């Protein structure tokens, strides 16, 4: 048997990983519903309440006053991707606890490729969720220009990869499934609330300069802004650079951590 990995074999392996992630997603209908219901509750209830108390000035990319529902939609799209990234992370920890992770890691393909394929597969799933959400939001007067649905796609891929890579990195550091609640409290919620998902940056500055600074450097803020601008056919260079940089950083850290010779993995007794 030849041991050279041909391009076709690489493609087969990627498709196999993507198929499994999709199958798992399809089998867990509750997960799909939860992923949709969460942002829809925010859009239908939270945004409706905030609309009355929160004034928004005209800020790019908007060229006129917009409804709060319109402002908050890119943040909710990013929230879907954030939760999806964390869900992938959770399933990695679960796979490790049940032993299924070993099947992946004893493959002859290099680990960066296996982890990268898992990451891309997760992003594909998150994009399906996002477009379903945007379709429902359209009936709620969230109507970006038609071209925006196309121009937002690269932004969704990039932000999904960055948030998924962060989840991958976190999964390598989490030893037990029970520790995942800590991730919710210390990572997901602070990231989401200390960002421009729900309020513009200038609003933050009015309340606290420190909070404004935290929001400004939060990678999630830049994922939100990248999506916001792309949804209106515009490109935000700073957000693009920050999201790309964070993607490289998080994915590099995840590959390091999952390397058998390096990272926490090497010191973990009991294995994958």
């Amino acid at each position, binding site marked *: *048997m030849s*041991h050279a*990995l*041909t391009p*076709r*074999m*690489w493609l*087969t*392996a990627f*498709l*196999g*990983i993507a*198929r*499994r992630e999709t*199958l*798992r997603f399809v*089998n*867990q209908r509750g997960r799909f519903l939860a992923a949709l219901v969460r942002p829809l509750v925010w859009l239908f209830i939270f945004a409706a309440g905030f609309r009355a108390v929160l004034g928004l000035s005209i800020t790019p990319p908007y060229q006129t006053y917009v409804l709060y529902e319109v402002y908050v939609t890119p943040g909710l799209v990013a929230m879907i991707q954030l939760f999806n990234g964390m869900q992938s992370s959770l399933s990695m920890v679960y796979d490790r606890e*049940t*032993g*299924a992770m*070993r*099947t*992946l*890691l*004893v*493959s*002859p*393909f*290099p680990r960066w490729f*296996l982890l990268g394929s898992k990451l891309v597969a997760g992003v594909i799933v998150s994009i399906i969720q996002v477009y379903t959400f945007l379709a429902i939001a359209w009936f709620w007067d969230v109507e970006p220009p038609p071209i925006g649905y196309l121009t937002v796609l690269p932004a969704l891929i990039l932000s999904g990869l960055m948030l998924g890579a962060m989840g991958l990195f976190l999964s390598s550091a989490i030893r037990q499934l029970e520790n995942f609640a800590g991730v919710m409290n210390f990572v997901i919620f602070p990231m989401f609330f200390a960002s421009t998902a729900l309020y513009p940056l200038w609003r933050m500055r009015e309340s606290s300069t420190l909070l404004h600074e935290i929001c400004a450097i939060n990678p999630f803020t830049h994922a939100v802004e990248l999506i916001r601008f792309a949804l209106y056919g515009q490109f935000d260079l700073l957000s693009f650079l920050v999201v790309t940089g964070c993607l490289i950083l998080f994915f590099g850290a995840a590959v390091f951590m999952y*390397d*058998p*010779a390096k990272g926490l993995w*090497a*010191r973990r*007794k*009991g*294995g*994958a």
Partner: protein
Amino acid sequence: MPQDALSIQNVSHNFGAFHALKNVSLTVPRGSFTALLGVNGAGKTTLFSLITRLYDNTSGRIEVAGHDLRREPGAALARLGVVFQSRSLDADLTVAQNLDYHAALHGITRRETRDRATEVMALVGLSDKLGVRVSALSGGQQRRAEIARALIHRPEILLLDEATVGLDVKSRAEVVALTRNLTRQGVSALWATHIMDEIRPEDGLVILHKGQVLASGRTDEVTKGDDLTRTFLRLTGEDA
């Protein structure tokens, strides 16, 4: 073609100050059934984790079918089939979907997997279970399905880590018999166990205790005609 399916030379592994493996050397000849006998904590799973590259081996040398695990990890892993101690099939998917996933991880296309799946499922006696969800299989059937999965990429050596743990007597006997049958068809097997009954006089034997190899060779040569349990207790110093 190298004579040994697996060759391990002077491998050690530490977890901090704890020496899990100390200068371990062993070989699994082609087409043989070699038992790796040791009590819980002897280092069997750590050794398997090194062979499967879940851990990096920093000392000594591990070769799978002549391929150095450090220098040619892809070639070495492509020749290994592994049945882990804990269940590792995805219980929410069918057996066919699990086989499909595993085959893809070895770069085998779906079309080719379909033929191979039929072949390996017949081999393990589960031809009618391809479309069944793993969670609906009995413990013994799940174990056999795991062996089918380990065989789908046609490995040269099978590693089975306590593959009969948790099985009833009948299922245990079936899994052992199945593995022996595979070795008659040219697949080599390294069978990690702590159950003496699973080992026959003609099998290869490696006794691992507290991270060290105490004896290796043909079982009847190691025991010199004595009972295996008595030999094991004598070698490990636990007969007193």
